[in-house]
């Protein structure tokens, strides 16, 4: 006798619930990230405008309401969709189509490992506020983000254009170099918290040093944070390290791309900015932790307690990581619009002669400190 469908569902209720909840979490995170990335395209233009004593975009309007340029991301999207979808005649059409996907897909995948809260109890069901709790979260991040090189490289290769190919060579060289530095800056964090799971690292940052100082990454690894920020900005290929694209003078790997294919390259850059901001917040600024907030409520070191509702605590935690992510995205924008671009040899020198030895030194110093303090 074959089991009926309701029997099967009852027997595997836990799996089905897990599947549904995971799908729901993925949808929520995906929606939030895409929305925020779209807003970042507007924020970049607004922030740069304010820094340069300008107003910024404010013309796209619906029924006469511009709302300070809030409709510009939608207008840009519509415009890009209506543009001609150009494929070079001699290019590799399959790879040319796949390259934008290879650029966008890995950066979106990264959000699976990033925790956005501790856990929430709904009707006795404990839901981790993270799509997938990998034991090797940091390694997963490094592995998947290095996949993005394929997007950069394939696009130049498939375009059959010498300048695009040169651009993608620059991109690949820069991304691979900074991948090394980025990985090594994270080793110090790994050593301090003793886990590669990002959720474990976030939880460990809720503890207090000396009884009053939150054990955030910036306190334990301040130098690694600066190195991480530099390496991550370079990995993201944004302006101080924008030799890949160099929109004012040199030509980048998406030279032959137009319409939504180009948009997906652009968009992946903005999504990667969110990844970096969230990663910086998770590793160095306590992730979803609010200082002195435990699961039961605020517990202050001066023997004061404010008990809080469980859902309020969850809200505070999710709000905390959101605020931190927004802050770091803004900081990356400010850095991008402040600093001039490095030359390519300077970029490479900074990586191999600057960041890499410093990251190794940081690992050594961290090791000595851990051995010294027990």
């Amino acid at each position, binding site marked *: 006798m074959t089991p009926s469908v309701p029997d099967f569902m009852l027997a595997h209720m836990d799996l089905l619930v897990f599947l549904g909840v995971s799908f729901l979490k993925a949808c929520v995170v995906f929606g939030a990230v895409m929305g925020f990335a779209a807003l970042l395209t507007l924020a970049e233009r607004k*922030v740069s405008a*304010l*820094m*340069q*004593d*300008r*107003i910024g975009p*404010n013309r796209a309007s619906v029924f006469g309401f511009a709302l300070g340029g809030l409709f510009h991301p939608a207008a840009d999207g519509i415009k890009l969709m209506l543009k001609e979808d150009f494929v070079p005649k001699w290019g590799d059409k399959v790879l040319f189509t796949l390259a934008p996907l290879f650029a966008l897909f890995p950066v979106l995948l990264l959000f699976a490992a990033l925790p956005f809260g501790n856990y929430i109890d709904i009707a006795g069901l404990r839901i981790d506020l993270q799509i997938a709790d990998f034991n090797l979260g940091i390694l997963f991040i490094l592995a998947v983000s290095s996949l993005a090189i394929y997007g950069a490289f394939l696009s130049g290769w498939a375009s059959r254009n010498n300048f695009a190919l040169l651009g993608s060579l620059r991109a690949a060289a820069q991304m691979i170099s900074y991948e090394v530095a980025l990985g090594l800056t994270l080793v110090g964090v790994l050593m301090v918290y003793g886990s590669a799971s990002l959720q474990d690292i976030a939880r460990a940052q809720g503890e207090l040093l000396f009884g009053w100082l939150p054990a955030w990454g910036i306190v334990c690894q301040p130098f690694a944070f*600066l190195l991480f920020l530099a390496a991550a900005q370079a990995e993201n290929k944004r302006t101080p390290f924008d030799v890949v694209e160099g929109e004012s003078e040199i030509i980048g790997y998406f030279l032959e791309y137009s319409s939504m294919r180009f948009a997906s390259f652009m968009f992946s850059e903005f999504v990667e900015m969110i990844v970096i901001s969230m990663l910086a917040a998770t590793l160095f600024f306590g992730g979803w932790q609010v200082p002195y907030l435990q699961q039961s409520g605020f517990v202050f070191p001066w023997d004061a307690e404010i008990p809080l509702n469980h859902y309020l605590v969850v809200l505070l935690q999710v709000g905390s990581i959101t605020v931190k992510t927004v802050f770091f995205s803004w900081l990356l924008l*400010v*850095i991008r*619009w*402040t*600093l001039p671009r490095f030359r390519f040899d300077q970029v490479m020198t900074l990586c191999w002669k600057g960041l890499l030895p410093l990251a190794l030194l940081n690992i050594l110093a961290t090791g000595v400190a851990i051995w010294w303090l027990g």
Partner: protein
Amino acid sequence: MIKIKKVDNRPLTLLERLYFTEVAAGMLVTLKHFFRNLFKPSNIVTVSYPEERIPLPGNARLRTRHRLKLRADGTPKCVACYMCQTACPAYCIDITAGEYSDGNPVEKYPVGFDIDLSRCVMCGMCVEACPEDAIAMDTGEIPGGALNRDDMFMTKRDLLRNLPGEPSLLGASNRLHNEWDRKGKKK
């Protein structure tokens, strides 16, 4: 008044070559602007042009939308001599000449006078060429964009108008016309 800042080109010190302090100094400058403009937008220099206008500087050298001047009695000063059409490097002026039938000693007037602004390069050659001071580019209106070509096409009706303080009395035909207007027409 433009402020001049002299840059001291000395070799970098060690602290400056370490770059991090210089990054912070640079961000201090941009952040100062960012927050000042965020909380006090009056410092922003942008003019939201079509809605908001400022007096245009340097009137004598400024070339704006064309107009055709009128005499005191409302007839066009233009005598349809084709000078401007000949001088125009962009071939955007198209004149159709006609003759006065009422014994006006000026003899000619423009039946049609079209300027295609979508072709015009705003060089001001027509104004220079005009012997009668009839065409001018002193309206202070900057021709912007349009949603179709017809909106960029100015006919005699759009062009003929006086500014406050007109009419001007320059030009030989102007005197001729005014004398005829005073004496001859009354008969």
